[in-house]
């Protein structure tokens, strides 16, 4: 079948609906947010339309710089953790029997049905002193006394990795299933150990998929605001937590919008940088 470029307006028809949805639910709200970020905050009231840079100026401080830095670090850490655990897991999964694959995939997909609230509360119970897993360790004789594992950075990381893990597997799975098994077989025949074959053949062959997964989990984790609140100390609060505070509790929409715009710009820049780096490497 030959594909012809669209000739008449009607040929673009199928595009109208998605384009409309994108405009109504993304472009318009985002443009509104950018506009509001320049509005004048009325302390003790609401805001008035204006064009001022105060909101951005307030954000440019060491304190918010640190919060932004931590948010980015946390998102990167979650992305790396997901990929490091996800690749070997998905690789082994794609090599296992069909039945086992289905059971695992259904279990992973069911995690997606859990809300962030439920995940947060479940982990805070698991990490608690009174009802948490350390009680099990005490019972097994591994620990002398039950202790609380939350709030801590580890608790935030664990819950966020748990939440993002199904997406990681879902993105990696098709690529790994389609990966030609003869590649690893050739490596093995040439004397590579299974681990070496995995690291030198499978991982490089999946470079683009891995990059895509990292970016997806990074963006997903950057928006998290409930888990850091439920499981972390105040120094583990992400920029999203502070944005919520400003928007919901201080009714300071201009400042919240400015922070959100900044967050979006920084993450877009990082994603662009990652893609650029990926292309450069491929060009070599």
């Amino acid at each position, binding site marked *: 079948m030959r594909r012809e470029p669209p000739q008449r307006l009607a040929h673009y028809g199928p595009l109208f609906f998605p384009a409309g949805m994108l405009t109504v639910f993304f472009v318009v709200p985002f443009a509104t947010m950018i506009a509001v970020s320049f509005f004048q905050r009325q302390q003790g*009231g609401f805001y008035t339309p204006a064009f001022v840079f105060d909101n951005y100026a307030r954000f440019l401080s060491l304190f918010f710089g640190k919060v932004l830095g931590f948010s980015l670090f946390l998102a990167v850490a979650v992305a790396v953790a997901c990929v490091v655990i996800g690749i070997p897991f998905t690789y082994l999964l794609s090599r296992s029997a069909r039945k086992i694959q289905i059971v695992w995939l259904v279990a992973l997909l069911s995690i997606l049905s859990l809300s962030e609230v439920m995940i947060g509360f479940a982990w*805070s119970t698991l990490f608690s002193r009174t009802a948490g897993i350390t009680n099990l360790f005490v019972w097994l004789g591994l620990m002398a006394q039950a202790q609380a594992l939350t709030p801590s950075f580890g608790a935030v990381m664990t819950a966020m990795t748990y939440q993002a893990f199904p997406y990681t597997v879902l993105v990696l799975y098709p690529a790994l299933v389609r990966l030609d098994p003869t590649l690893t077989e050739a490596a093995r025949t040439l004397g590579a150990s299974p681990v070496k074959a995995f690291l030198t053949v499978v991982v490089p062959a999946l470079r683009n998929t891995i990059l895509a997964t990292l970016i997806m989990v990074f963006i997903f984790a950057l928006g998290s605001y409930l888990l850091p*609140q439920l499981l972390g100390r105040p120094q583990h609060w992400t920029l999203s937590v502070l944005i919520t505070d400003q928007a*919901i509790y201080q009714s300071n929409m201009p400042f919240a919008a400015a922070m959100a715009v900044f967050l979006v710009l920084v993450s877009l820049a990082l994603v662009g940088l990652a893609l650029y780096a990926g292309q450069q490497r491929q060009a070599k």
Partner: protein
Amino acid sequence: MRDILNAKLGRRSVLGAGLAGASMLAMPSVLRAQDKSLKVGVYGGFFKDSFDKNIFPDFTKATGIAIESVAEPTGEAWLVQLEQAAKAGAAPADISMMSQVAMLKGQSTNLWAPLDLGKIPNSKNLIERFVNKYPDGKVAGIGAVSWYITLVTNTQVYKEAPTSWAALWDKANADKLGLLALVSNSFLLEVTAKTFMGGTKALDTEEGIVKALEKLSEVKPNVRLWYRDEAQFEQALKSGEIPMGQYYHDVTGLAASQGSPVRSTFPKEGGIQDSGCWALSRASKKTEEAHTFINYMCQPAIQATLSRKVGTSPTVKRDLLDLTAEEFASVSSDIDPIIPRYDLYQTKSDFLNQKWTEMIAG
């Protein structure tokens, strides 16, 4: 603000209430008014349920005005919605229960229709401070209910009840406290000022505020959880995971009466008394009904019913009430309360918020 009184109100239900509110904004005409009706906004969850069950039916019986209760989201989201709707000439609720800070913010845009005290004769029953006034003396709102935030402890971990807010600073309580996460709903600056600086007047100047924040930052090593979500702290308090903190007197009392090992103590410096006002949106066309409603709610008998059924502290004078000493003690205290410096959360809100966030997250 206040995630009112309901332990089970999660973020989802708050969002739900927000959505409900938003969809009411979108189609106010769907709710065709009857001859005499009034839309009243109350905090969603336990509060709304209690009002629907214990208060509104009697009001309709007494006055013939049908009440349609609207679940308000918490935080200032409802204020923002009312404000946007009023600009468009709509009122998602005629009367809403609003926090004091929200009252002041609404005043700045004249969101609240001035109330005529002549039509609310029962307002003379109120304790003076529960009449919320515009700077020029017009009445913006009338006290609906008040509640206390007190020092709460798990009875299994603390055999003896603490007697002073100073317990929060006690080094023995390292990593044991749960405190509210926001400057504007924890009122811990006022607590610090009353406990260590001779009263909340010490917060008049920015130097005073900074000093109070410095003193308060000494509490940080003791704090395990800075909570926004009440359910999280309540559950941790009951299990003893976080055995001490600040929490709502009424909900703690309710939990204790249901057998949880918790207690609420009025410290010798006083509990923090916060309150909600009935306020009328300027876009409402139900001025007459609204005045009838507020007048009805200011009756001592109704305030007593609220204390007994909802667990709130009355806004009318103590001697007018038929509450027994025991009933009164379960919702209030004769110890002079700590009254939040609401004015600061309006005039200095950004300064306070910035310093506070730097203090706890820095």
